[in-house]
């Protein structure tokens, strides 16, 4: 089998068995990148030289028996909003166009300890604000399944890189669906862990109370292995949670007998593409056949999640992005008169329109006289949404539904109508508000051949239930394949 068709865990196994060298794996990926990156544009930054150097170091440790984990030697991509020491980190924004961090994000360091090789940094919506990867200052990323379509966002570069075999897995970040939705659009597995499971140290903040780092990868086994590697308690992140149950690979069990699965009726109504609906319900049927107890239930408040989310995320973003001012790092405008003009010109030239839109909204909802009506109200609605989930999880182990109302839209279709774009996040956003884990995995293709994503949501700290359910479904479904099929790959 061609190297690129291995999953991350399979590749690490071959490396350990000395059937493949780390260098071979890195070179195979770069060969693929050179072939198609011009078209897909998954990356903002690539560093082959450094990757080859890392490959040698990792190989030596594997040979010495120092690195034995399930990800040792695997070439990976990192979303460009995670700091990488010595490697350009732009958040796909002009304002960080020359920013070279002096430290690496904790999640990145954890992967390095696991022996991965970092290839480069993936494209994203600027500061993770967007659902299509079209708001990047460095050009759009295309969906490897059909390059007329978006890969989703904001972790679109990461999802497309996995789908297009330009890496073995990638890290993404999810503030309102930014891992799960692009995973769905690109036919890969993506997971947003429970808030606090993966350290946010070194993740350039968008909405701090919502942001979580998670994997985008080829299958559920990889997902469990990656999550296990990046989930650590970090004393540098006050919101990091001390967990004992991060042995996620132990949940790779092909069994859902007695698992209670609820499908929110409200997730299946108006606005949902019938093809998506059929595929998702088909997946539910598979799980039912495997012994799960599946039923529909009423889950209200869905429509309030989006306005609450945009209020909170914009407010936090307006504050988080204040530090980009042309003083300590990043872009500074060339000509200005005085301090305040320097601030204004730097920021106006450095940020793109979507970022400015959200910063302005966020500044407004926090401003004197509006705080209670907007921001505080949104925090109260957040409390109601959390309560609704608590009630649902008293009855169900897992909530099942679509990840997005449609498959990947065409390039250029979404940006013209922001609110419509925001509506696309309807199934993913409430998960962030409540801090819950969610996984997305492919469950079919539509008539255009575009992947359809199935979303499973768990109660907080119940990633294992999600992994077990997703794994069971995946075993029944068979191998989904990658966007560019090769002779040897196919249904497992």
């Amino acid at each position, binding site marked *: 089998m061609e190297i690129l068709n291995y999953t991350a865990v399979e590749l690490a196994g071959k490396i350990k068995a000395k059937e493949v060298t780390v260098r071979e794996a890195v070179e195979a990926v770069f060969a693929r990148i050179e072939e198609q990156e011009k078209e897909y544009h998954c990356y903002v930054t690539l560093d082959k030289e450094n990757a080859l150097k890392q490959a040698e170091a990792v190989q030596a440790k594997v040979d010495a028996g120092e690195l034995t984990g399930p990800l040792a030697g695997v070439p990976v991509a990192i979303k460009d909003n995670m700091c990488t020491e010595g490697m350009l980190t732009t958040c796909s924004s002009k304002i960080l166009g020359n920013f070279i961090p002096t430290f690496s*994000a904790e999640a990145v360091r954890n992967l390095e300890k696991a022996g991965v090789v970092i290839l480069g940094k993936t494209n994203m919506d600027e500061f993770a604000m967007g659902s299509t990867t079209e708001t990047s200052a460095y050009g759009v990323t295309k969906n490897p399944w059909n390059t007329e379509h978006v890969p989703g966002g904001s972790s679109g570069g990461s999802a497309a890189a996995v789908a297009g075999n330009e890496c073995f897995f990638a890290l993404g970040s999810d503030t309102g669906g930014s891992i799960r939705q692009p995973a769905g659009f690109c036919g890969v597995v993506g997971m947003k862990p429970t808030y606090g499971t993966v350290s946010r140290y070194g993740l350039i*903040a968008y909405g701090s109370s919502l942001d979580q780092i998670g994997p985008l990868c080829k299958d559920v086994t990889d997902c469990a292995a990656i999550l296990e590697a990046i989930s650590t308690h970090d004393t540098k992140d*006050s*919101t990091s949670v001390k967990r004992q149950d991060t042995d996620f690979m132990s949940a790779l069990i092909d069994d859902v007998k007695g698992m209670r699965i609820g499908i929110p009726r409200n997730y299946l109504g108006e606005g949902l593409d019938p093809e998506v609906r059929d595929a998702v319900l088909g997946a539910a049927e598979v799980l039912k056949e495997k012994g799960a107890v599946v039923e529909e239930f009423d889950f209200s408040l869905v429509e309030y999640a989006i306005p609450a989310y945009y209020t909170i995320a914009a407010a936090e973003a*307006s504050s988080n992005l*204040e530090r980009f001012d042309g003083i300590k790092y990043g872009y500074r405008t060339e000509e200005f008169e005085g301090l305040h003009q320097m601030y204004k010109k730097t920021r106006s030239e450095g940020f793109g329109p979507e970022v400015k839109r959200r910063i302005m909204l966020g500044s407004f909802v*926090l401003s004197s006289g509006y705080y209670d009506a907007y921001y505080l109200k949104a925090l109260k609605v957040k409390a109601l949404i959390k309560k609704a989930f608590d009630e649902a999880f008293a009855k169900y182990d897992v909530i099942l539904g679509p990840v997005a109302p449609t498959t990947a839209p065409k390039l250029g279709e979404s940006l013209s109508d922001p609110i419509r774009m925001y509506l696309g996040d309807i199934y993913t956003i409430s998960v962030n508000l409540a801090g819950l884990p969610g996984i997305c995995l492919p469950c079919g293709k539509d008539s255009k051949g575009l992947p359809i994503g199935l979303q499973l949501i768990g109660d907080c700290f119940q990633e294992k239930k999600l992994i077990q359910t997703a794994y069971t479904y995946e075993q029944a479904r068979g191998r989904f394949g990658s966007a560019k099929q090769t002779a040897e790959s196919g249904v497992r």
Partner: protein
Amino acid sequence: MGKQYETVIGLEVHVELATKTKIFCGCSTAFGAAPNAHTCPVCTGMPGSLPVLNKQVVEYAVAVGLATDCDITRVCKFDRKNYFYPDNPQNYQISQLYLPICRNGHVDIKTADGTKSVGIHEIHMEEDAGKLIHDEWEDCSLVDYNRSGVPLIEIVSEPDMRSADEVIAYLEKLRLIIQYLGASDCKLQEGSMRADVNLSVREVGAEKFGTRTEMKNLNSFRAIARAIEGERARQIELLESGQEVIQETRRWDDTKECSYAMRSKEDAQDYRYFPDPDLVPVHINEEWIEQIKAAQPEFRDEKMARYKAEYELPDYDIDILTESKHMADIFEQTVAICGQPKKVSNWLMVETMRLLKEQEMEPEDIRFAPENLAKLIALVEAKEINGTVAKEVFEKIFDENIDPEKYVEENGLKTVNDEGALRKTVEEVIAANPQSVEDYQNGKEKAIGFLVGQTMKAMKGKADPGMVNQLLRELL
């Protein structure tokens, strides 16, 4: 007759806490480092960095709250105060607005009219800003983030003060409490204690407060007193001429003795406070409060009572000695070595206070070791040196913390106790001053003083005056 006005003053006092590290990162708070040497990604607002709260900051804040009779907020949170300025690296300051750590306290101050209670509205924790230096040569300013993230508590009083005297009494009292706690050294000049003055005037008898202004950049008690006078006069003049006082922030220029408004179109003063999502709530339970209480040092009132009982010192001495925690510490440490509380007290109250005043220093600036004062007292006790020499040596101790034993030895300052040598000098003095001898013998007691002086002079001060006196009487 002109209207009578009353000044209404409230204070916002910022105090830099005496922690070893900053409030949200492990950078040192020490003074004197090269610019930006005490910085890291957190306190320079690097992308991706996150704050983690220094526990000691909470404990100091609670300690100050308890000492000022505040209610301690059991679950308190941090909020972000958003405004752009280069000394503020994140362009938001992490502070507390909605749930400050302490509320509803008071301190009692003594004024000419008796005692008065000044209410404390709240105490909150926050981070300090960096320092801006104006470049003389180029048209730019330079930012040093060494102070960025140094922990502060801001103590917000009620508008309970009516004069500069009351304000200064309040500040002195706060300073004393905080110094006794060891929570800060509270030096106005060095900026570890800073006061912003909120001031309004109203006609005597009026119910409603007038419009207030906030005055910043006051770095001495004198500047505070002058700024209060100046602002009171400015506001009265405005009102008298039919104008209105505008609510604004003003900056005091102590050299020009006037203030000016700090407003600009770009300062909206709309701080968009909201809970900081990067920090979790601080839950202060009863047990923790008890621990902090138990660790509290002896306060001034307790110390005063103990000094009276233990050392039997006069109230006047006790008052001066305990006015500064540092002074009291030196007193106690010296007494612990050499006993003699009254003698130690005298050295501190008289010579030390004189030298402090002469050199425009605060008791906090005293640098000599108690051992050296103890040694000096022992030298005097043993009559190894006389009073005049002792004063001279003490100045050396005060300025350079010298070891008095060594110093006296090296400079040959020991009193001459050799009776033979002394007798010889006395005989010479008698021979050289027949008039005084005659006066004395004619019953003029005073004349002996002159002869003692002459002998001391001849001995270059190194004689025991009692012994000289005795010898003179014997020989005459």
